[in-house]
């Protein structure tokens, strides 16, 4: 599904333990996606856009900067919980993202305590498995009894 199908919420969202973030994908990632992020995010490390330089440094080709898929997961997380309700977001980069990869974004509520949800999220690539693991906390609304 397209990312923008979930409207952004200003108010805290009701979430309960075990609930999942709407799964979404991005890609196949192009070199243009990487270059666009380099310009937008101010990361002009040539290892991400200069093919001969990346190969001379021992890589098969250029690869995406971590902040590209961390940012893509971040907007999905913000869509899920509402941007102003996010308290913390922590990402650990565990793999690289290459041109041609399709990325899958997932997340779930680990627990809810005192109106704050702890969330566990991940990004997986079509060629390398898990590339990013994340945790986040967000203020949530009380679940409405069914």
């Amino acid at each position, binding site marked *: 599904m397209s990312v923008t199908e979930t409207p*952004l919420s200003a108010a805290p969202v009701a979430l309960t333990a075990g609930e999942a973030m709407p799964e979404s994908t991005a890609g196949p990632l192009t070199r243009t996606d990487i270059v666009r992020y380099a310009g*937008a995010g*101010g990361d002009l490390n040539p290892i991400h856009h200069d093919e001969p330089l990346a190969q001379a440094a021992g890589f098969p080709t250029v690869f995406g900067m971590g902040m590209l898929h961390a*940012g893509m997961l*971040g*907007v999905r997380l913000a869509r899920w919980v509402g941007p102003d309700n996010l308290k913390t977001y922590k990402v650990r980069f565990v793999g690289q993202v290459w041109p041609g990869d399709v990325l899958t974004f997932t997340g779930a509520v680990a627990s809810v305590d005192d109106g704050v949800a702890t969330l566990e999220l991940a990004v997986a690539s079509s060629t390398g498995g898990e590339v990013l693991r994340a945790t986040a906390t967000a203020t949530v609304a009380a679940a409405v009894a069914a």
Partner: protein
Amino acid sequence: MIDPDLVGKELGSVRFPVERSKVYELARALHDDDAVWHDPEAARAAGFERVPLLPTATVLADHWRPDGALAPAIALGADLNRLLHGEAAWEFLRPVAVGEELRATTRVVDVTTREGKRGGTMTLATIATDFVAPDGEVAIRRVDTLVETGAPA
């Protein structure tokens, strides 16, 4: 080579506007073209008082540093061909709206070394950046771990 003597030192401070054109460009680069991220009218229609900030928009400070996103790594003395981004963590202490101005100040929290799995000594640097609002309050705190892998034998 990351310099361990930099622990506790400031790596630079930059004041920057959280500007809607740059936020729009960033949101598009993240494949999310929702007008709420940059248009005050769309934000109001969605129930926001002000245009909300997307979580990783702290990177916009990098446009105001001479070396961009690489500025802290260069200031640390890291070898850029052996540099990896290990972790990034944000604490959102109060909402920031598009249109505000922030000052980002980065300091070195820790530098440690560890034997790498593929030989050589890895150096890990932890740097923290405070994004301070004009009223002096820290609005966002970001902590990054940069990894310099071992030099080839």
